[in-house]
């Protein structure tokens, strides 16, 4: 079973290896051919060498027999004839020897003109036979004549033949040597080619395997290195579509899943931490504000108790009265602060189920509730009958509206009859509501500060500084926004807030 990681390259690999292998086979076959030829050449040389030996032997035999024959003929005289006859017998035996050699020679295919000069040798032997026969007949003179006429001629031909044969043989041996060295060179060349072919196949194999394994692994490592779970803008750098279906691809996919999970968890954790931090900051500010603002009336109470004691001693009844008022005022203020704080802390804890209700209906109910202070201030409140509906905790929004209308009445300014308008319109997924008055307005610099807990701009007007903090808290619990629009002091104030609309699904909350 081929590992999947090697499958994409296996086709290419097979092709390359196939091509290389066929090349290799061709080269190898050629090399085998060369070796075959080389072997043949060696055989041939061996054969030539054997022929050479035979030929030498043959020559020696012929030459010996000729020398003897010459000796017989040259040194011949009547007295010596018996000895000569013995010599002649030896010579004829040598010719006989030649006969058998020549037959052996004929078995070989290349006999360097042997066939051509065999008749000459036979002729020579026959001539010698006739000379020896003449000797036997004691006819020395006649034998000399035959020798003179025939033998010289025959011997010359034989010598020429021997020389030519030697020459041809030498050429053949030399040629065979050249051929052998040529074939050796070829064999070396093909060996080198085979070596390079093997080296190339190995290299290509390594490169392909390297590509299919190392490359994806490097990519994966890079992606893992680059991955930052804390940053939602960066994903896992490997694209799922580009991943192969092999082992590394599966590994990368697993990594991606883990990375996504990690990122998801990290973002959730970050969000949670942010929320906790926000809550912590809120709590810190709350504790600080409470400790400061609740301590204040206590300092007042204790301070004026001290002053009261002194004023009682001196009998200053006017001051005694004022001291008592300060103490009562501080105690009342503390009571109000505690009530408001309780109210504020309940917003986060007690959540009524959101319901759909019309802002017109809500405003009508609040106006009815506040009828007393509205009548006393001579305020006029206008609102549309067809304001959009919202989805929210109705009791809380009631408090918001109550606070805003009360503020609008309270901060009307001297000698000014409050004119208050409540309006609302749908903006996308939200309903934006505006409570507008013609009162004292707000310096733009303090538009944010008015929402702070216990923050008050106008000390001359009754209040604990909790009202708008409460409004902000309630609207923010509903994920809405609240802000103030005012052209400045004396220009009236618009408090605006947004609440979720029931008609459109909110995307950002899902």
């Amino acid at each position, binding site marked *: 079973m081929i590992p999947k990681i090697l499958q994409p390259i296996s086709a290419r690999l097979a092709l390359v290896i196939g091509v290389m292998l066929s090349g290799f086979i061709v080269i190898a076959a050629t090399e085998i051919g060369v070796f075959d030829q080389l072997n043949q050449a060696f055989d041939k040389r061996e054969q030539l060498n054997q022929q050479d030996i035979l030929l030498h032997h043959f020559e020696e035999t012929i030459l010996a027999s000729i020398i003897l024959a010459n000796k017989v003929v040259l040194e011949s005289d009547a007295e010596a004839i018996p000895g000569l006859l013995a010599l002649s017998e030896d010579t004829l035996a040598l010719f006989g020897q030649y006969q058998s050699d020549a037959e052996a020679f004929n078995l070989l295919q290349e006999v360097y003109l042997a066939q051509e000069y065999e008749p000459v040798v036979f002729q020579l032997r026959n001539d010698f036979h006739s000379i020896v026969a003449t000797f036997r007949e004691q006819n020395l003179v006649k034998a000399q004549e035959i020798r003179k006429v025939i033998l010289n001629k025959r011997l010359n031909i034989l010598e020429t033949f021997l020389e030519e044969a030697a020459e041809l043989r030498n050429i053949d041996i030399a040629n065979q040597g050249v051929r052998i060295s040529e074939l050796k060179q070829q064999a070396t060349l093909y060996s080198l080619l085979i070596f390079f072919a093997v080296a190339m196949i190995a290299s290509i194999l390594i490169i392909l395997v390297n590509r299919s394994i190392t490359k994806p692994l490097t990519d994966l490592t890079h992606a893992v290195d680059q991955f930052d779970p804390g940053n939602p803008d960066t994903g896992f750098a490997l694209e799922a579509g580009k991943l192969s279906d092999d082992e590394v691809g599966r590994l990368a996919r697993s990594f991606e899943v883990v990375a996504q999970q990690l990122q998801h968890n990290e973002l959730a954790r970050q969000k949670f931490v942010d929320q906790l931090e926000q809550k912590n900051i809120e709590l810190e500010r709350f504790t600080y504000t409470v400790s*400061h603002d609740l301590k204040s009336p206590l*300092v*007042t109470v204790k*301070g*004026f108790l001290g*002053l009261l004691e002194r004023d009682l001693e001196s009998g200053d009844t006017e001051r005694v009265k004022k001291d008592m008022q300060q103490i009562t005022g501080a105690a009342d203020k503390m009571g109000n602060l505690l009530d408001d704080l309780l109210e504020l802390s309940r917003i986060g804890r007690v959540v009524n189920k959101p319901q759909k209700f019309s802002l017109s209906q809500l405003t009508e109910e609040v106006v009815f509730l506040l009828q007393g202070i509205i009548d006393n201030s001579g305020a006029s409140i206008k609102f549309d009958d067809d304001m959009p509906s919202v989805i929210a905790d109705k009791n809380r929004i009631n408090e918001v509206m109550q606070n805003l209308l009360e503020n609008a009445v309270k901060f009307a300014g001297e000698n000014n009859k409050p004119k208050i308008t409540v309006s609302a319109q749908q903006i996308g997924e939200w309903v934006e509501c505006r409570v507008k008055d013609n009162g004292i307005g707000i310096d733009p*610099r*303090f538009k944010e500060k008015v929402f702070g807990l*216990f923050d008050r*701009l106008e000390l001359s007007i009754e209040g604990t500084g909790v009202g708008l903090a409460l409004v902000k808290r309630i609207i923010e619990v509903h994920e809405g926004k609240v802000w103030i629009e005012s052209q400045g002091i004396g220009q009236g104030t618009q408090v605006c807030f947004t609440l979720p609309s029931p008609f459109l699904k909110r995307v950002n909350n899902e």
Partner: protein
Amino acid sequence: MNKIASGEPLILLLVEDNEAHAEMVKRSFEQHQVSNLIRHVADGQAALDYLRREGEYDDDKKYPFPHCVLLDLRLPKVDGLEVLRQIKTNEKLRKMPVVILTTSAAEKDVAMAYEYHANSYVVKPMDFGKFESLMNDLGYYWMAWNQDPWNE
């Protein structure tokens, strides 16, 4: 030269949003051996206007330039720390001794106040006896002992 020798009254600018506390400070200083004049403003913006001689505070007779500022931290409109920062970054005002007088003993407030170069930081004591004693000491310290930064 100090104010006892010159016979000038000490002019204090009291920045305090709590009317009752302001009354307590004023009445403590009434008992004081050293002659003094207290001017009271109830929010941070008024304090800055007063010191810069802006708006209604350009009348030197009615609103004399103070020798020392008693500054509360939690103030309407402009916060006490911001008032302090603006005084201490203002070329003309930064020599002004500013004493923080507040109910808060929070470490953060103390640290921030000194970060902004407050000259002193005191916490309003709960006990009235101690309150009066503190006012007495502050009066003596800034009137009798402390050298006026503008004194040449």
